[in-house]
């Protein structure tokens, strides 16, 4: 897994609630069997005026000038700030792959959908939950100040604003540790093989039918 320690980058406002994973990466791109190449299609339906197809070269596609990430001042954005329930909908990890490929390292919102939230950690993208009024304030400040950068430090759990003010955030200790170290979750779990096997032995006693082979 990719590590995350700290990051400083340009912030952009996605001033909407319920940004769903269909919006982050539309379904036609899910046909890919790869884990990369999704960046040009992030927010495809909002970002372009035509319909995107997988594998397409996006350099000459007509951009939607109204979409925030298409504005020159937000070129190179690596921190997104959005409203409630970000990442709701489908479980597609492609949504996080697209954010990551695009260069987004941090997403800040008052709340996240759970599957999306989980998927972020698997890919070294840091989702940060901040109070709704703080997020509202950030959205305004970003819109009002060109070049607004946020500095995020995972070990001290702080988001630092351009004026030096720090906003603390919460994160589960295990998630934090694994993300800071960039640990491979599967390798960590496999250190517990013996415990998994003894669980299975006990469970097969209690509920033997769960360990039957399936009818083929």
């Amino acid at each position: 897994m990719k590590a995350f320690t700290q990051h400083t980058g340009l912030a952009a406002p996605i001033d909407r609630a319920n940004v769903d994973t269909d919006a982050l990466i539309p379904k036609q791109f899910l046909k890919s069997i790869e884990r990369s190449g999704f960046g040009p299609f992030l927010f495809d339906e909002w970002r372009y005026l035509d319909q995107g197809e997988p594998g397409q070269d996006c350099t000459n596609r007509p951009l939607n000038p109204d979409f925030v990430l298409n504005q020159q001042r937000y070129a190179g954005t690596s921190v997104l700030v959005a409203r409630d329930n970000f990442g709701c909908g489908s479980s597609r990890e492609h949504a996080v792959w697209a954010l990551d490929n695009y260069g987004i390292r941090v997403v800040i919102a008052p709340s996240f959908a759970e599957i999306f939230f989980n998927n972020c950690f698997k890919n070294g993208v840091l989702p940060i939950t901040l109070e709704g009024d703080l997020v509202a304030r950030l959205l305004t400040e970003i819109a009002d100040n060109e070049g607004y950068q946020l500095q995020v430090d995972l070990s001290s759990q702080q988001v630092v604003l351009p004026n030096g003010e720090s906003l603390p955030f919460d994160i589960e200790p295990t998630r934090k540790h694994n993300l800071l170290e960039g640990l491979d979750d599967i390798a960590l779990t496999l250190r517990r093989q013996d415990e998994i096997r003894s669980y299975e032995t006990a469970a097969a006693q209690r509920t033997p039918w769960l360990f039957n082979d399936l009818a083929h």
Partner: protein
Amino acid sequence: MAAHTLYDKIFDSHVVRREADGSVLLYIDRQLLHEVTSPQAFEGLRLSGRKPWRGVANLAVADHNVPTTNIEQGITDPIARLQVETLTRNCGEFEITEYGMGDIRQGVVHVMGPEQGFTQPGMTIICGDSHTATHGAFAAIAYGVGTSEVEHALATQTLTQTKSKNMQILVEGKLGRGVTAKDIILAVIGEIGTAGGTGYAIEFAGSAIRDLSMEGRMTVCNMAIEAGARVGLIAVDQTTIDYLDGRPSSPSGEQWQQAVIHWKSLVSDDNANFDHVVKVDAGSIEPQVTWGTSPEMVTQIAGSVPDPESEPDTQKARSMRGALDYMGLAANTVMTDIELDKVFIGSCTNGRIEDLRAAAEVAKGRQVSDRIKLALVVPGSGLVKQQAESEGLDQIFIDAGFEWREPGCSMCLAMNADRLSPQERCASTSNRNFEGRQGQGGRTHLVSPAMAAAAAISGHFVDVRSW
């Protein structure tokens, strides 16, 4: 002894190990796989030289990308074909059972699993798909995960998990005529909102839930995720046990007796504590129709499109305006005045036999309106299709002017050729009305199967109760 909720009981019995911060390593009994969210997981296994921990705990099916017409010609879209073939190749290489295209058991993963008895009470079940909560209808902890966790579960048969809080949605009373499981869940989402269940496992309880068939219960649990909850579940009762009796993968003989005894304990204890309880009066639920781009944007068929100007919350008013703009609807439009272009009956929400029966009853002897360009009926699985055909439902649909298709996800998410064109308006029995979900620029209204069929016949929404 302390009282436990159903969710607590299942969760606690699957803990392999507890960590200091409260997270646990949770044993996963079963995993369902499909072509879209598994290729990168199998690739991960290959790259790290790992094998599935317990191959027989997995079952795979292609559903999202499969065509629903001319299946003998295979998949014409080369990218989709590669993905479906990749699933077959991976299942071969890693020795996992797959129901391929043309197998009578093939279908939408959440229709197929219960049908086969793969889904059983008390299990933990995962799938790289957010509608995995469907299986919670069988008193299982079933939830959707991303591809990294698909790989993790393949390799270790476990996931790291924190326990959710407990929410109970108590639906008491009798549903009115023409009101269905779909209307219950849409009304609940309308009430608690799309993030109302975030952080919770929702147990649906009460007499109206107990009165539902397993099909109806699956419809309700299916959309728990649309209320923000990863897990939706319903206690075991005789309806559950009767459904499981004789399924191909159900236990048999002495094991069946033993399993039934265990399953009957899978209910919340009388005094179990729920962190949040929502009470709904079943008798007051009316047939529901969504008007916006999120399932919480829903109203009753006798209602009208709400007016953002009368919404005091400015943030909400703004998203309502955005939704109305996308949907091409004016505030205060009466729901029954909304005219449609297409109708879709199917999906893991409403593609089971009972759904098709309800739609067929409405369609019988009538004709799809001239203004409807396409009215699709897509059975949830090969077995649903076979059953429907044996009851003559296919002929009812065809005679009425519907298209009768092969099983798959189809226009629920429009990954195959079944989709809306920009600005086309659709009455759909699926679960998401997000922007672009059924095709770029397409406009989706979620309804029950009977309401969808009635809308197809009328060309606009109608109250099935006046049918």
